[in-house]
């Protein structure tokens, strides 16, 4: 076929593939490449240099940040595993009362705004925290929450739901025959557990661990609020960006590249390990739950419920403080709604902005999720493989990186016409798109391709067939994806902090600023508003998702 006839034959989906690739190239690849290139630019001369990387790996300021990031991310991940794996085993293999309650709380912890945990712990264990004060009454000094171990604690309690939910899903999907066979061949229960069960859930555990690690490396809010001189790469990148304002943010970018490299390396390592371990099996014989007896049963229940309650504690504290009577930043005893009055007075912009940005992003996410998942699932071309791969990129690239990419690429460029609000919407769209695509893709995989083929065969043009046949069938996936996109977009902090200006402040930014100012009442009220939105979306996901737990992963 000649090029001309090829063009004439370009069907609807080829055109859509081109559109998707264009959008991803412009909004995802270009800013990231720009960031990567800036890492090799000399800030003063504008020439090419390796000096930035030399600086990062020789100066103690950066080296410490690197070590600190690695330290809290590794320990946080380890902590999450130590809590998440036993929790998953108990709930998957034994009868635990209030199982739905446990997984619901774990999911709420997962989706709660990430920085809330950090500042709620300050209110409990900080210099003037109520737990600190309570023990000080008796002359007992509680350990401070500031610094590395505070961050590790927050990471552990924030990220364990990933490990828990993934391991649980894997355990529930494991054919009981494997364990039966092991027992039948003479394994003791403990041998069966270590030789059969544990290796079989290893892929799930390691995937959960990688997610924890990547998120911990990229997390900005927690070390920013709890660090107090303990700097991680993400806070270093942010303050470098702030101090380089006006000039080229080369150091901020270089630090970000190191962060990305760490995440990528972790992911590649895990893929390599997993490559030889693919265990697919039909669930012909689903596992059955056993009943634990006596004190073991009590201990198990205490552990399971205790964990999720402690993890939920920050959220409860935040909601509680929002209802405390305040005078300015000071709590004056008793309950009152002053904090809510204040957010209506001082931060109505933040609330409306948050909703406008998140909703606009969700509209884009939903439209593109539908189209992208179709291209990924139904079209077996190099382009669809590339798009599938690109959908992993936003997971791996810290918010700070993309945000700096957006500033350096689009500010002053032709795309600047969309303004800061427009840039924020596009940024949320591209960063949260993978949530929508994941959920829609798994929905679409369950729809037989013959559905669309039948529609086309009966005379419907491809675009029409997609709209009237495919879209109604993948609607649950689209809705769940939209809700997940909304939850994660409205809670976005790190990249907004870099992009926002006077008129485009959002709730998370306002909360962050309020916490820095010690305005805990205001922060509490705003956080409660965020939590209510998030909670409502979670409830809606429960209604629409086929598998309520895995929808959040």
């Amino acid at each position: 076929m000649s090029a001309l006839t090829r063009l004439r034959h370009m069907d609807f989906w080829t055109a859509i593939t081109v559109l998707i690739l264009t959008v991803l190239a412009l909004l995802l690849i270009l800013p990231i490449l720009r960031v990567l290139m800036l890492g090799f630019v000399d800030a003063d001369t504008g020439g090419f240099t390796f000096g930035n990387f030399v600086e990062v790996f020789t100066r103690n300021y950066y080296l410490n940040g690197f070590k600190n990031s690695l330290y809290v991310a590794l320990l946080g991940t380890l902590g999450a595993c130590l809590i998440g794996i036993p929790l998953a085993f108990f709930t998957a293999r034994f009868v635990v009362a209030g199982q739905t309650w446990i997984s619901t709380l774990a999911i709420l912890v997962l989706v709660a705004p990430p920085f809330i945990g950090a500042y709620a712990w300050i209110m409990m264990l900080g210099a003037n925290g109520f737990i600190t004060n309570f023990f000080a009454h008796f002359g007992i000094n509680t350990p401070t929450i500031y610094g590395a171990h505070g961050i590790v604690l927050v990471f552990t309690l924030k990220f364990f739901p990933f490990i828990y939910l993934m391991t649980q899903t894997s355990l529930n999907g494991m054919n009981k025959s494997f364990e039966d066979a092991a027992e039948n061949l003479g394994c003791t229960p403990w041998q069966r557990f270590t030789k059969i069960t544990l290796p079989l859930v290893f892929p799930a555990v390691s995937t959960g661990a990688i997610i924890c690690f990547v998120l911990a490396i990229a997390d900005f809010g927690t070390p920013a609020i709890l660090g107090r001189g303990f700097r991680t790469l993400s806070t270093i990148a942010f303050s470098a960006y702030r101090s380089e304002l006006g000039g080229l943010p080369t150091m901020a970018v270089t630090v970000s590249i190191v962060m990305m490299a760490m995440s990528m390396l972790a992911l590649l390592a895990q893929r390599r390990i997993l490559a030889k371990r693919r265990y697919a099996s039909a669930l012909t014989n689903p596992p059955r739950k056993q009943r634990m007896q006596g004190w073991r049963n009590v201990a198990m229940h205490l552990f399971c419920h205790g964990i999720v309650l402690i993890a939920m504690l920050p959220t409860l504290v935040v909601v509680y403080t929002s209802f405390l009577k305040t005078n300015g930043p000071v709590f004056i005893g008793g309950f009152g709604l002053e904090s809510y009055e204040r957010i209506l007075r001082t931060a109505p912009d933040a609330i409306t902005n948050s909703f406008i940005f998140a909703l606009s992003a969700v509209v884009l996410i939903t439209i593109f999720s539908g189209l992208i998942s179709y291209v990924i699932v139904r079209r077996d071309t190099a382009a669809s493989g590339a798009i599938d791969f690109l959908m992993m990129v936003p997971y791996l690239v810290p918010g700070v990186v993309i945000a700096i990419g957006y500033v350096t690429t689009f500010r002053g460029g032709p795309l600047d016409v969309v303004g800061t609000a427009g840039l924020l919407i596009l940024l949320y769209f591209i960063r949260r798109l993978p949530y929508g695509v994941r959920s829609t893709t798994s929905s679409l995989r369950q729809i037989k391709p013959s559905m669309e083929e039948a529609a086309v065969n009966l005379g419907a043009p491809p675009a029409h067939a997609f709209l009237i046949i495919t879209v109604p069938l993948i609607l649950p996936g689209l809705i769940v994806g939209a809700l997940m996109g909304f939850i994660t977009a409205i809670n976005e902090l790190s990249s907004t902090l870099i992009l926002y200006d006077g008129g485009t402040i959002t709730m998370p930014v306002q909360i962050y600023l309020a916490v820095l100012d010690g305005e805990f009442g205001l922060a509490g009220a705003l956080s409660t508003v965020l939590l209510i939105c998030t909670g409502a979306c979670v409830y809606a996901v429960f209604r629409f998702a086929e598998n309520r737990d895995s929808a959040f992963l």
Partner: protein
Amino acid sequence: MASVEITGLRKLYGNVMALSDITLSIPSGAFYTLLGPSGCGKTTLLRTIAGFHAQNSGQIAIDGASIEDLPAHKRDVAMVFQDYAVFPHLSVRDNVAFGLKQRKVNRTEIDTRVTEVLEVVQLGHLADRMPHELSGGQQQRVGLARAIVVRPKVLLMDEPLSNLDAKLRVDLRAELRRIQRDLGITTVYVTHDQEEALAMSDIVCVMHGGIIQQAAPPLDIYLRPANRFVATFVGANNFLAVSRTAAKATLVSGGAEITPLIRDDGPVVGAMRPEDVRVLAAGTTAPEGDIIVSARIREISFIGREMEIFAQTDAGEHIKAVSRPDPAIVALPENSPVTLAIRPDDLSFFVDSGDGVRVP
């Protein structure tokens, strides 16, 4: 009603030749079946006609007009799918009306045609049901109704009965054939079930490895298979080694001279259908003129309306025979000597190399 002409069609998946120079011609109104094992290219060919795959080269023409440039939704060839592909969010009526709506047929005509076709497939009483309320057989009737209601030029069916249970399959088979005859609609039918193919078709086209092995009416396919593949794939066959010298050809088993039966030079093998082999207890005299091969019983299975006898000739060749149950034979212990009798006319010969083409 329309005829289909396919010339030199070729389709590659990477380096794998899925269709290799397919040339065939389907007369108007014929029931044309593509038969072959999985991976033989039959479904690929059907889907290429439907426009779901683009061929690498070659032409498809309907009524003499090439359809190569038409996208799938403009080809006017309606397909019935193996997995029914009934739209789960539309009622039976809306499913059937789907193609008519795409063709912008007016409402009143849609209503009459849908009602009509639902009667034809005996689903009139279920018009307002949703697909999940229907059985597999009913869903496939919806699939059929949906395809024929648009009065396509060609009806394509991709193993439409293979997901149904055996009894239903046989019933629906007859019904499909009846409807196809009544409408006189040119039909291309894909199946791997030889019985289905033989029972329904005007022409059976046996495919293997992306190549057409033989396209002929069912009786010809069965009685005069074009090569060894067709001979084994459609019905079973026993193959017997033939030893040839310049002047004489004999069966290796039994040593019967068969020189006058072979009209070709070169190495050949003999073949016969299991039902053409008669098993006689030792000592019984065989009918006049039959080829006699002495053998021993290896195994006998009695499966109800017939018995299957697996025997080994004295020369070591394995032969399967099928016949009506004979208590005297079924009772024979292993290793009992028997006589196998074959009428010379029932022997056919294939070249003993390459494609194994039939020797006329």
